[in-house]
């Protein structure tokens, strides 16, 4: 599956490790509950570790583990859940997370300009047909009124 990363199309290299799947080597994302329960096992594997945040999750709950994570996915169950925008801002500005932050789930090409401004740097669209409009959406505006992450 293709995603957008750093303003370019690229192949996704991360595996989705569901809570009922066995822990294995390789770059993989897990839920926050699994991360908290099995952090040591997960970190001892070979491969990079990522976590999937939902709007209900609190960034502060995983603050201690952030330096060990390479990817944080922000999952949109619906496009209007704006909590994820603040979560991205907190990750970058308050916790100085420097790894990849990826939007997943149901968001719109029309939201990626905002998402990139609050620190999201990769985008996995549910619908591959929307990749080009998502890429274009990053350039919807060339000006802005407020400081943010970018």
């Amino acid at each position, binding site marked *: 599956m293709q995603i957008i990363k750093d303003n370019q199309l690229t192949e996704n290299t991360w595996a989705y490790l569901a809570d009922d799947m066995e822990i294995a080597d390789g770059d993989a994302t897990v839920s926050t509950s699994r991360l908290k329960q099995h952090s040591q096992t997960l970190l001892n594997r070979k491969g990079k570790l990522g976590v999937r945040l939902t709007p209900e999750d609190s960034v502060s709950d995983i603050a201690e583990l952030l330096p060990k994570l390479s990817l944080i996915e922000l999952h949109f169950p619906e*496009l209007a859940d*704006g*909590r994820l925008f*603040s*979560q991205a801002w907190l990750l970058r500005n308050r916790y100085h997370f420097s790894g990849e932050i990826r939007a997943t789930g149901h968001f719109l090409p029309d939201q990626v300009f905002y998402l990139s401004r609050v620190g999201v740097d990769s985008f996995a669209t549910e619908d591959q047909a929307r990749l080009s409009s998502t890429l274009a959406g990053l350039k919807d*505006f060339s*000006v802005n009124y*407020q400081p*943010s992450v970018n």
Partner: protein
Amino acid sequence: MYQYNEIDQKLVDERVAQFRRQTERFLKGELSADEFRHLRLRNGLYIQTHAPMLRVAGPYGLLNSKQIRKLAYIARKFDKGYCHFTTRQNIQYNWPKLEEVPDILAELASVQMHAIQTSGNCMRNTTTDHLAGVCVDEIEDPRPYCEIIRQWTTLHPEFDYLPRKFKIAVSGALHDRAATQLHDIGIHLVKNKNGEIGFRILVGGGLGRTPMIGHVIRPFLEKKYLLSYLEAILRIYNLYGRRDNKYKARIKILVKETGIEEFTRQIEEEWQLTKDTLILTEERINAIKKHFVAPPYELSAAEDQTFVLHQQENPAFATWYKYNTADHKAPGYRAVFLSLKAPEVPPGDMTDDQLDAVADLADDYTYGEIRVTHRQNLVFADVKQADLFVLWQKLDRLKLATPNIGTVTDIICCPGLDFCSLANAGSIGVAKEINQALDDMDYIHDIGELKINMSGCMNGCAHQSVGHIGILGVDKKGTEWYQLTLGGTSDNEAAIGERLGPAVAKSDVTKAITTILDVYVKQRLEEESFLDMVKRVGIEPFREQVYANH
């Protein structure tokens, strides 16, 4: 007033281009109706009972003559020849075609206007005192801060998908004419004991189905922290405001459920972490203030006394002067209200021809600026007293000089069932009936200050819960009924009106209103206003009479 620079213009132009692409994608089926809904609402576009409705931003109620002419042009070319001014100082068109909305937005952008964030769950148009900069009781002109907030709120990347809509109002005067206590955030310019001017910040006011008065969460905030403090409030709200129930999603509910002390603690804690990263500098404030310098008032303006003679000779002019003009800080000047509450006209509506004529009058008599009031009238803020008589005659010919500002026929009213898909009731029709029943101007003036606010549904767009008399349309098994409240006010001593009794049938509303007025006229003390009398005697004497035959 504020003039766009290259960045401002680019932003609105790019927004128009973005919305044009969005509309095309929707029409081609590339965006679902629900997806497009979020996008169009953030450009002020509703899909309504009869046609889409487009809400255009009137930034803190301030427009120039060129913009008014553009509104007239849009009304003529894209609509049915009129538009509607709202309680939040915005402008609504009720008949635009979806495919043409991008063109309308492009027309607006050509005169430094837009419809950005005039609906949807985001930060809306900031509103303020319609007498800002000219009133006699001002601590400081709030408009520069409104513009600073306008820019900060516009396309804010973190706060465009809030739990619910979010409204900010700013007041710079002793008398609150902006209903700041009934906004998600209310901001008052205040002077502390050292003589420094800063902001008092209120949070959690609001109307709608659970009306609440805002709480002061910071009695004094230094100016440089304005934006960092707003950011802290918005972040806490965005993260913790309820998203499970849209009727409980406003910040007022979060404040209530969290408790004001704990809520304030959370805001202060968040703010301490960010306060020094978003400083509003003195230079920036001064740069914006340069856009709001007073016009070159004529020092000799007060010498003219012909307007006194005209009042003596012409009682109609004298009445208009008394009700439709207000004191001005500059000697020899008055602020003039243009009443959009003529009998027979839906409150707040104006035709294209009226708009064009008003633009010309503004150029001739008030430095080309027009303000929209939250009671749905217009203001010419800087009129020389020597010009009042001529201006009155011209306004009278345009049917914009009904001497009823602040009186019982200066009714705030939402578009209601006639235009709005949310409404339960035809509020415009009821307003018209009340207006027709109260056709005796002497009686109206004898009643004095009395604010009737009427909404066609619980959403309370016309602020009925803070009307001295509030009228709320409710649906009972498919028929229209009206709930009356008494004693509400949005002024300094803000209060939510008390329910008079069971809702009355549509055909009985006017009778109920005239009965309430009769009780007031019979039982008032000398010089006692309606609101003061309700405070003194409560609602019982009114209830007895209104329901006497039921």
